């Protein structure tokens, strides 16, 4: 008999977080809170141009400054390998050549006895650039275009035929801005070598892939790398990669033969750990006069980095949200001289669904149909792509409850900016496939406030078949190894979504 969270009566119960006392007393330790005897401090220097090369870098003054232990640049950094990421590939290792590919690129790291000495010395580094004209616009003719990087472009039916047969066609272009994850906790890494054994305290959402990345970067077996992250000060997707500064902390520790703490400044957080990229999205919707959708064409473009890769799909939710026989969803990226974007809570879906739902509102206006009615008219009773039934779907109930709570019936239908007259926004996060294993699993999730500790501490008395990340017993070590977690991913064992599509 399979136990469920619902049967255990846990959902909706008011319980205190098990890590509450630690957090309210300052006892919870975040990556920058750990100390070592002999700890040194590293400060990063960033490129002030977006494209070109470093023609000269003067480090003598910095090296001679009080307390400085090392100044590391592309001229003296060790050769490093490019690592895989947990999701996709990792960033290129830093300081490997003199090329500048984005503003804010890390071009030097200064290590000193104290953070004050490191920061002061960092300002003494003088950089001469040979700048190129950077590519910063999606329209730049020099820029390379990458189509379907996430491999999630989708199509069904014949969009052209659908549009030709439609009574009404609405077309619009929407743009969404860049948004930065900017968790409150400054990303920090403390790296310590003991021979060839590397230990890092790191701001990561995946100690397991962080470990794998570092192992590959430094050419070590994974068993030689330990990643500790019991608490992190939020990440919101930015912690799903091992960013260059993490590698630089480990390099600094190796070069100086001391444990090194590296904390990004708030300004550096904007260019060092990714961000949600801006998008330009073209929506074309075709419908019958009665509101039934006959065609959806959704194409989005966003920037990506020159030398790095990030894959997200803007149209993954578009494919499953509505019952429409003809559909094409495409995401393209354009390589620009910008820092590499990354996942930010609701990656792809957030900007993509926004554009889709705005277009649906335009269509409703054109048709003279209530926007909510339009959604209900096109409600997908089964999966629009495969025809399979949903395991569960409570979107209709969400619409009803939302309409009641928003006072939908009292709205004044009008065009233009109006929160109440706008759309209901639905989104969908496809469930992850379940891997099964007979091995008892030790979870590698770190706690960033999503409640994983609490969930793990309370398991159903009749445990489901063990999966890779469902614990047999309460974990004894936190934040080590294994897989990662993101706030968009349900915490096991609550993995079966109760609502197939929920308001985004």
């Amino acid at each position, binding site marked *: 008999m399979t136990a469920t969270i619902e049967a255990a009566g846990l959902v909706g119960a008011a319980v205190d977080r098990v890590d509450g006392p630690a957090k309210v007393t300052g006892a919870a330790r975040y990556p920058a809170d750990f100390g070592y005897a002999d700890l040194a401090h590293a400060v990063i220097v960033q490129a*002030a141009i977006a494209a070109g090369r470093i023609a000269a870098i003067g480090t003598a003054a910095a090296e001679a400054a009080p307390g400085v232990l090392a100044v590391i640049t592309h001229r003296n950094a060790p050769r490093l390998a490019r690592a895989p990421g947990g999701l996709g590939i990792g960033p290129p290792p830093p300081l490997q050549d003199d090329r500048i590919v984005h503003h804010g690129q890390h071009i030097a790291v200064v290590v000193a006895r104290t953070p004050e000495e490191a920061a002061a010395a960092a300002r003494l580094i003088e950089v001469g650039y040979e700048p190129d004209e950077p590519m910063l616009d999606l329209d730049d003719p020099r820029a390379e275009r990458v189509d379907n990087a996430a491999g999630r472009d989708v199509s069904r039916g014949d969009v052209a035929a659908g549009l030709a047969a439609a009574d009404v066609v609405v077309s619009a272009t929407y743009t969404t801005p860049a948004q930065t994850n900017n968790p409150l906790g400054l990303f920090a890494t403390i790296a310590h070598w003991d021979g060839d054994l590397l230990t890092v305290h790191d701001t990561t959402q995946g100690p397991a892939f962080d470990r794998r990345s570092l192992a590959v970067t430094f050419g070590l077996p994974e068993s030689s790398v330990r990643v500790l992250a019991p608490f992190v000060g939020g990440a919101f997707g930015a912690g799903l990669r091992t960013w260059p500064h993490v590698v630089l902390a480990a390099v600094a520790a190796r070069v100086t033969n001391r444990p090194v703490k590296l904390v990004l400044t708030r300004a550096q957080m904007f260019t060092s750990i990714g961000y949600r990229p801006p998008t330009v999205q073209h929506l074309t919707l075709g419908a019958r006069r009665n509101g039934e959708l006959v065609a959806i064409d959704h194409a989005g473009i966003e920037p990506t980095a020159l030398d790095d890769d990030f894959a997200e799909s803007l149209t993954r939710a578009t494919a499953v949200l509505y019952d429409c026989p003809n559909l094409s969803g495409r995401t393209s990226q354009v390589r620009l001289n910008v820092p590499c974007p990354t996942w930010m809570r609701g990656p792809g879906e957030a900007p993509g669904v926004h554009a889709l739902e705005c277009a649906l509102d335009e269509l409703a206006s054109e048709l003279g149909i209530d926007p909510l009615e339009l959604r209900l008219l096109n409600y997908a009773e089964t999966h629009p792509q495969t025809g399979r039934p949903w395991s569960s779907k409570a979107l209709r109930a969400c619409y009803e409850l939302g309409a009641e709570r928003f006072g939908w019936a009292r709205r004044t239908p009008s065009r233009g900016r109006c929160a109440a007259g706008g759309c209901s926004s639905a989104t969908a996060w496809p469930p992850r496939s379940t891997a099964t294993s007979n091995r008892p699993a030790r979870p590698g999730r770190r706690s960033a406030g999503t409640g994983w500790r609490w969930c793990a501490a309370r398991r159903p008395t009749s445990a489901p078949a063990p999966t890779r990340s469902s614990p047999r017993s309460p974990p004894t070590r936190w934040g080590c190894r294994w897989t990662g977690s993101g706030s968009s991913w349900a915490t096991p064992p609550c993995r079966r979504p109760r609502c197939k599509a929920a308001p985004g």
Partner: protein
Amino acid sequence: MQPFDYVRAAGVRDAVAAAAARPEAAFLAGGTTQVDLMKDGVFAPRTLIDITRLPLRGVTAGQDVLRVGALTTMEELAADPVVTRRLPVVREALLLAASPQLRNMATIGGNLLQRTRCRYYRDLSCACNRRTPGAGCDAIGGQHRMHAILGTSDQCIATHASDLAVALVALDATVRTSGAAGERAIPLTEFYRTPGDSPDVEHSLQPGELITEVTVPLPPEETRSGYLKVRDRVSYEFALASAAVAVRVTDGVVRDARVALGGLATVPWRSREAEDVLRGAAASEDTYRAAAEAALAGARPLPGNAFKVELGKRTVVRALSTVTGLPE
């Protein structure tokens, strides 16, 4: 932060003498500007003279004047009962500024001397004439949504960020100082310098001259005053536009008026043009609109901050309407 010598002054004469003896010395009070800009590398004094122990704290009210020690904190001044009763424009300007923590640290003297929030000024990789004369101004052709439309030059368009200074400029406050040349009093309306050709000169203090006190004439009892701050967020954000107004109305006629603007200008902007329209006119929205037009007549907006012209006018109208009790 670059290294510096730290000395603590015991008294005003001690502080002034210490500054005179040391080139490139700076006074340290609350530190909310000084420490911040030293971390950014914008300031790099060789000596910091800690004046926090000087006996320059406290508020005393005379018959016609309020005397405020320069080291009085923003919170302390806002809580003063005379300020609360007679100078709501000052109290509001203080409480709408910064955050409670910052208001516990920041002093009145320091607040008047705070530097612009212009992001190019604060970023050493950008060109800034205020920081480095002749270097150029990246704001003019860059992101300047928060920047000034009054008092600008082709060298600098940085907004002055102090709310308190706007209120005090409206009230004809005076700054009292002590320096190597002795003591003097400077009307606040003459204290600030628009950028012109030398944006690095922000005010009329001599090197090593210390603000010791700010005096504020108390307006007649029937004066209504207030501070309206318009900004992107409800709290803890700098002004896009603000207005400090003080008005005396009898029998529906404006007898006396003070108007100063914030968030719009390179210095706290006293608008005698608006006051001339108001004085002797009916206390009505039409009058206030005319005053607002006069206040913003000299505005020189750039593409990215052109919205501030209309926003500034509406801010003036609303501030006047609010303190004189007109319906919205």
